């Protein structure tokens, strides 16, 4: 009888080009279902692609590839304007779908457009490609040369990873969100916990969470070192996905699947936390931080800028004003439009926020809202490495949930929604 398989082993078996059953430790040639790319394409991959001598992108791959211009903003610098134009030409010459600057962040737009489906093998030239694991897919970040290999051959090789399982059970206390769960695990297990491994999430808490809350958690699988962060499939997965003519292949792990480690979390004991400078695993309860006055609050990124995040913020603002300079960037133009229709843009701007067009923006110190030396920032993003958001060793970036971010903006210092008076 064959051995039980994890979700990763099942998906990589299905996508192996010679149709074999693979297990952790195997190396396998695979064909991805869909491929994501961004400005890595013009900055690295296009010139390397032509260096290989190839003339045209593999046509089957081209049909399943989506380019999203998210990191470079909209008309920010001459160099970036040229990169974007180069990308448009490359996309149209090769029949590749493109979402232009301003459409949003790749890890929001990609699933809005139906490119992420249960059971899919998704590869993308961005480490946060792991986000799409929330849809019960194996979704992994690759480099610019790996993309070149895919564009030339339509296939690449992968090492089948071992899997760490995180089981979260119980109802989350009030004002504790999926970002807090994820950060809690980061704090306990640290950034190298899942290096070279996939992470699977199970447990009653996961099924209680909305898809958007799950996306926040899969997004940060890479901050635990994980090559993928995979959520179970249920009715919520099915309902959230947009109508598409793509097939879905929901996957469950076998009961006798082998896990390297199982980590249990009791959701009922959690409280709001932040990751303190300069690492996403330097996690502390907000209640133990003391007074940290803020210079800037940033709400945005592929981690936390979907409509549910804005619903949560809107409920907490209740006509109050922000004491701290605050920038809000929706995860996509679609999210931005929905926020406008719900009256949130007005609400956030009346509170004093700067509302910007959709891009990665301040998250990686790109086009908007860079931080400077000595500044203290609270951000809903996923990384607070030195220099990540601009600035230097003296710049302090704290990572928290949208509820913590908006409460802190109102109070001018880091507090959780519990402390909002």
């Amino acid at each position, binding site marked *: 009888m064959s051995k039980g398989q994890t979700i990763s082993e099942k998906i990589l078996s299905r996508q192996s080009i010679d149709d074999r059953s693979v297990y952790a430790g195997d*190396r396998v040639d695979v064909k991805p279902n869909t491929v994501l790319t961004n400005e*890595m394409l*013009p*900055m*690295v991959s296009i*010139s*390397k692609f032509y*260096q*290989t*001598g*190839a*003339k*045209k992108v593999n046509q089957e791959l081209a049909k399943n590839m989506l380019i999203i211009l998210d*990191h470079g903003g909209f008309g920010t*610098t001459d*160099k*970036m304007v040229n*990169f974007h134009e180069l990308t448009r030409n490359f996309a149209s010459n090769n029949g590749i779908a493109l979402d232009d600057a301003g459409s949003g962040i790749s890890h929001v737009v990609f699933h809005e457009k139906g490119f992420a489906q249960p059971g899919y093998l998704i590869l993308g*030239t*961005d*480490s946060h*490609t792991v986000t799409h694991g929330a849809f019960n897919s194996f979704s992994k*970040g*690759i*480099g*610019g*040369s*790996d993309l*070149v*290999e895919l564009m*030339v*051959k339509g296939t690449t090789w992968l090492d089948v990873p071992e899997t760490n399982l995180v089981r979260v059970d119980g109802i989350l206390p009030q004002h504790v969100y999926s970002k807090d769960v994820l950060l809690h695990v980061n704090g306990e297990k640290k*950034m*190298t916990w899942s*290096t*070279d491994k996939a992470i699977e999430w199970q447990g009653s808490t996961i099924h209680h969470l909305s898809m958007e809350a799950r996306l926040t958690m899969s997004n940060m699988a*890479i901050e635990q*070192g994980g*090559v993928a962060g995979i959520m179970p499939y249920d009715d919520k997965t099915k309902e959230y996905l947009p109508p598409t003519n793509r097939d879905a292949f929901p996957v469950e792990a076998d009961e006798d699947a082998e896990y390297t480690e199982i980590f249990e979390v009791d959701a009922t004991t959690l409280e709001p936390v932040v990751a303190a400078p300069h*690492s996403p695993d330097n996690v502390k309860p907000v209640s133990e931080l003391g007074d940290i006055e803020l210079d800037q609050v940033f709400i945005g990124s592929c981690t936390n800028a979907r409509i549910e995040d804005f619903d949560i913020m809107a409920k907490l603002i209740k006509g109050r004003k922000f004491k701290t300079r605050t920038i809000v960037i929706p995860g996509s133009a679609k999210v931005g439009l929905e926020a406008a229709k719900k009256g949130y843009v007005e609400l956030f701007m009346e509170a004093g926020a700067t509302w910007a067009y959709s891009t990665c923006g301040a998250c*990686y*110190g*790109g086009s908007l809202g860079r931080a400077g030396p000595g500044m203290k920032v609270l951000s809903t993003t996923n*990384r607070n*490495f*030195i*220099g*990540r958001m*601009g600035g*230097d*060793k003296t710049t302090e970036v704290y990572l928290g949930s949208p509820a913590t971010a908006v409460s802190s903006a109102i109070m001018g210092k880091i507090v959780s929604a519990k402390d909002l008076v």
Partner: protein
Amino acid sequence: MEVSNIRGKAMKFGDKMNTDIIIPSQYLEHSDPNVYCKYVMAAIRPSTWEEIQERGDTVFIGGIDFGSGSSREQAPDAIKFAGVKCVVAESFATIFFRNCVNVGLPLLEVKGISEKVDEGDEVVVDLHQGVIINQTRNITIQGQKLEPFLLNKMEKGGLIPELQDYVKQHQLDQ
């Protein structure tokens, strides 16, 4: 590409040298690696490129989780184009490791390396044997040998030369 007799002076870095430290985002717009390599390790040791030009052949010695963070291939390219011959670290992040093989930047994982090499030591790395020799201290330290599959890619100079052969064989250049 030379992988069995890599010589250089050690340049030491600590744990968790992530890609935002190796090549901060504001320099990525210089898409030419000959240009952005000047900003290698800019977030933590801005003089790195100049120091490498002065001391000549250099081997980076890192701690745990070298290269964590972004998938940006510009990180290994920046290290390579700055003139670094090899990166030896306690451990590497997954995507960075593969990017090094793809761009042909030799790397070796060696547990305990931080304590066995000091800044400026003369070292020799042999990827076939998976060892690093610290000539200054006269010690040989065994690391994690690269598998033949990866070593072979590295010796060919990375993924692009391999793909050039593939393109010719399959006449994709027509």
